[in-house]
């Protein structure tokens, strides 16, 4: 795969709005000539909060790559100081960004297959770019099953526009009542490949579901990061086999990940 050089760039805010309580959608544009040649679904970028008291970037998954606008869309939860500061950005404001980071999903290997995308909470956004990429591959069936806390189904309409989409909610206020894995079983969904992003208990359940179905399973992990480029070894995931970098069993989420084959990591 062609690797786009990583760089730190200035980004201009085209839009930053609240989609659901505490969940924001930020569309940010590259300066002329700075846009990357390729963005893979599942990759992420490091957004530097405009608050000068914040030092490190915040790793946020790419929700959409708008090549037509040379812009990236990020959907993130404003939880801590840094992301709340990002939420304060207005149209026309600028911020610094380190990107594009991480491996992303190998969509080519999923061409012609039956793929089930499962997202939970703030793990939902990267599944949208993945859905878009997969539906453009001939003969590929894509279904999205997204799990929410309540009826605030952020991004769900975007999924409905590109593929067959199902929602599940923890409180039963919309879609299926229960977890995404409950919903998948209730709907008797089967697939050749499952791609998932979400909280760790969900990922464990999804990995179990994939085994039941004898499906390949790829999961996108989250971890606290410092450098984002593989130098500091802050963000590691435990792996079943010895990793290629440190020759222990700790792979770098920012570099070997964030997307891993579920059976390759201890979750």
């Amino acid at each position, binding site marked *: 795969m062609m690797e786009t*050089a*990583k*760089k*730190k760039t200035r980004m201009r805010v085209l839009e930053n709005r609240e989609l659901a309580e505490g969940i924001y959608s930020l569309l940010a544009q590259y300066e002329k000539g700075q846009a990357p040649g390729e963005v893979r679904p599942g990759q992420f970028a490091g957004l*530097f909060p405009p608050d000068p*008291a*914040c*030092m*490190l*970037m915040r790793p946020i998954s790419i929700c959409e790559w708008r090549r037509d606008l040379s812009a990236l869309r990020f959907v993130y939860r404003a939880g801590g100081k*840094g992301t709340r500061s990002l939420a304060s950005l207005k149209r026309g404001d600028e911020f610094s960004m*380190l990107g594009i980071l991480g491996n992303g999903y190998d969509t080519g290997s999923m061409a012609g297959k039956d793929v089930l995308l499962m997202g939970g909470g703030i793990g939902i956004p990267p599944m949208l770019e993945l859905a878009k990429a997969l539906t453009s591959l001939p003969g590929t069936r894509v279904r999205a099953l997204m799990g929410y806390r309540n009826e605030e189904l952020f991004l769900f309409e975007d999924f409905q526009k590109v593929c067959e989409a199902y929602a599940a909610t923890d409180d039963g206020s919309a879609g299926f009542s229960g977890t995404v894995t409950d919903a998948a079983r209730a709907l008797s969904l089967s697939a050749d490949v499952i791609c998932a992003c979400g909280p760790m208990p969900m990922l464990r359940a999804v990995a179990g579901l994939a085994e039941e179905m004898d499906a390949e399973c790829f999961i996108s992990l989250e*971890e*606290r*990061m*410092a*450098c*984002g*480029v*593989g*130098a*500091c*070894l*802050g*963000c*590691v995931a435990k792996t079943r086999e010895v990793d290629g*970098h*440190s*020759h*222990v*069993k*700790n792979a770098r989420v920012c*570099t070997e990940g964030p997307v891993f084959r579920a059976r390759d990591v201890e979750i």
Partner: protein
Amino acid sequence: MNRPDLSVNIAGVSFKNPVMTASGTFGSGMEYGQFVDLNRLGAVVTKGVSSVPWPGNPTPRVTEVTSGMLNAIGLQNPGVEVFVERDLAFLKQFDTRIIVNVCGRTEEEYLAVVERLADEPVDMLEINVSCPNVKEGAIAFGQKPEALYRITRRIKDIARQPVIMKLTPNVTDIAETARAAEAGGADALSMINTLTGMKIDVEKRTFVLANKTGGLSGPAIRPVAVRMVWQASQAVSIPIIGMGGIASAEDALEFILAGASAVAAGAMNFVNPYLTEEIADGIEAYLVRHGIGSVRDLIGAVR
């Protein structure tokens, strides 16, 4: 005016400029080589290398604090054999000095790495007796002057390359620590390593780092580091490599004026991956602006 002279000499090793990378923040240069030209650096100081692979600590390993960060990586590294075959081979392609940071749990483990590197293309060794994030070794050797003296002596007895002792700031009297390393035969000092810190998540009522404590780095520690470099430079006559929150050429110049012969950028590489080259350019511009012929004229020149 001719271009100013940025070269410095530490323990008989010449460096094209005084800008280095702080151990643990720059890997072995591969990752940041896509942002900066490694040929432009005075030296690459590698991440700590042990005799066998070390897995490091559980996650979370890093967290941000105001103007700084805490880390408790725990010196994850592939061990000296993989380091020599892969990382050293990579670094040899560049016209920059190679300083290998050496870590261990026991004196014997340090000595094993030093011995293994004896005939390798390594310009200097930096001995990590100051990492606060591993249970055995490391900082335990750096906090007691007698232990520091002893391990320095033992390493000097077998090392083929000049030896830099990397000091911890987690001591009562940094001058005493510096003198112990010098007495043990150290050729130079690196300072400072991180300050031991802690962060608590009040909502969850838990430690943020799995290791509970971590090393504080970043601009938050810079004034402490500048002060300690100055104190140590008054106490010893061996050269000092200064580090601690350097984010610009101006910050680097503070360390040099305080008495450092060279400087290293660490955590701020994470914020500005172009930082090391910018510091080299900035020091040169400063020398031009002030009509100073050599950066060596600035070492310890604070009045």
